């Protein structure tokens, strides 16, 4: 019996170290490097205020980003065969109340028509990435578009469910700030994680949402704006998530599991020893 209890004491100590090991290994520290071949944007949780007005804030340096290729918009006319911006980098942060997404891309010239947009699915129904246009075999859902333009210097909160349905929402919840420097645009979009507008995407930490990107190079070429309206660089759907807070209650359940397993062993060993000694 003493032998059995000694073993269980050892088990408990090792189990405790195991739990501590779990805790440290899975603490929500952001990884140090950018993700190659990104499929998602992770909005990391920060304490305090977010760099919503400063695309060059050093706070962004501590956050890893993602990069997504862009394609000319060829899905519907007016098409475009060649676009200036071939890829876009994105970083995200949130503080439990508010979120900020930094979009960064190369554009050799600063023009009034330069613009950037984020698109999100809204609600439970999936939507086609092209403005949530109508699917022929099944009903899709609407999209929420955050559109920033250099000319106005602001972001506009918009909605669409199909072509020619894009409209500015009556209630505006999105802010935007862009800075062009040395051939690079950095645009920060910010908003509350949750709003009271049913036309908006609602961000719940830990929940994956779908996001797409669009960029316009507003350079004037031969007297015409190079990219405007449907002529733009686009991505299809990728994923975005506000990273959840670490849930330490899990480790309580792990300790309970360890304790129950050890108790089960104790009962079995005792029973076997009694059975043999009888």
């Amino acid at each position, binding site marked *: 019996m003493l032998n059995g209890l000694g073993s269980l004491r050892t*088990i408990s100590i090792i189990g405790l170290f195991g739990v501590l090991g779990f805790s440290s290994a899975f603490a929500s520290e952001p990884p140090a490097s950018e993700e190659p071949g990104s499929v998602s944007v992770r909005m990391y949780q920060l304490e305090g205020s977010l760099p919503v007005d400063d695309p060059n804030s050093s706070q962004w340096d501590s956050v890893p980003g993602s990069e997504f290729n862009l394609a000319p918009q060829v899905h519907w006319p007016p098409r475009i065969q060649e676009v200036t911006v071939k890829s876009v980098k994105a970083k995200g942060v949130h503080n439990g109340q508010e979120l900020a997404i930094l979009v960064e891309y190369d554009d050799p010239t600063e023009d009034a028509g330069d613009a950037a947009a984020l698109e999100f699915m809204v609600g439970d129904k999936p939507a086609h990435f092209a403005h949530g246009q109508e699917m022929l075999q099944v009903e899709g859902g609407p999209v929420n578009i955050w559109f920033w333009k250099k000319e106005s210097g602001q972001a506009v909160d918009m909605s669409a469910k199909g072509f020619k349905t894009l409209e500015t929402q009556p209630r505006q919840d999105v802010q935007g700030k862009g800075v062009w420097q040395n051939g690079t645009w950095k645009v920060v979009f910010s908003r509350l994680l949750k709003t009271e507008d049913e036309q908006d995407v609602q961000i719940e930490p830990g929940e994956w949402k779908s996001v797409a990107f669009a960029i316009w190079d507003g350079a004037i070429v031969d007297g015409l704006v190079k990219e405007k309206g449907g002529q733009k660089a686009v991505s299809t759907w990728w994923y975005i998530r506000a990273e959840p807070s670490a849930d330490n209650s899990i480790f309580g359940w792990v300790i309970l599991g360890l304790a129950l397993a050890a108790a089960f062993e104790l009962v079995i060993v005792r029973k076997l020893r009694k059975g043999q000694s009888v």
Partner: protein
Amino acid sequence: MKGPIISGAVILAGVFIFLKFLLPLFTAPLPASLIYLYLALALSGIMIYGTMSAPSLEAMMGPVYRFLSGQGQSGMGHMARLAVLVMFPLLVGWQTYSSLAPSDLPPAENRTIHPAPPGEFVGLSNPYPKTPENIMMGKGLYAAYCSPCHGANFDGKGTAAPGFNPPPADFTDPGTIAQLQEAYLFWRIKKGGVGLPVEGMPWKSAMPRWEEELPEEFIWKIIMGEYDGAHQSPRTWEEEE
């Protein structure tokens, strides 16, 4: 005394090796869930056989009971018992963590690449003869409307291709149009990405709905041009019979 346990382990290992490695030499590989099911059935059979009588029960479980009770053990036996007693709670703890920890990965996408077309497109055949003139016209239309994404060489490497997810289809790949009937291509070209059913979710296809811009004649001839340019042949009803 250890005979039944070792025999049982050998039988289980044999069943696993047969299902996992030998069977796929003759037929399609079994899914892991089915292999586990067969292993569970084999284990059940071994347990039933081993517990049919008091002597067989003692032969099978006696060594296990003596090992766990620890009486009379020393040296390696003692260490092995200790290791088992330590590992079991750790395994339970790990399993608890694994089942409760939230997934860190984006949702898996189970997109069906070639979903079934609507009934109205099944069985259609190309109404235009495969003459050199029609094929040449199809290739010209392909160059104008399709090649920016699907590539001048029909290989999915058009100038716009790097930005698309999923990438444009590579028609030279035997796994694409060579597996499909012309009617299927007619549906996909005519209706585009918005024609996809639920199985095609998430709806990322940038394929235009060409019926709004091109007459059906152009679409049929583009199909001809695609097969000819990619050196592939359409799947036909005759091959399926």
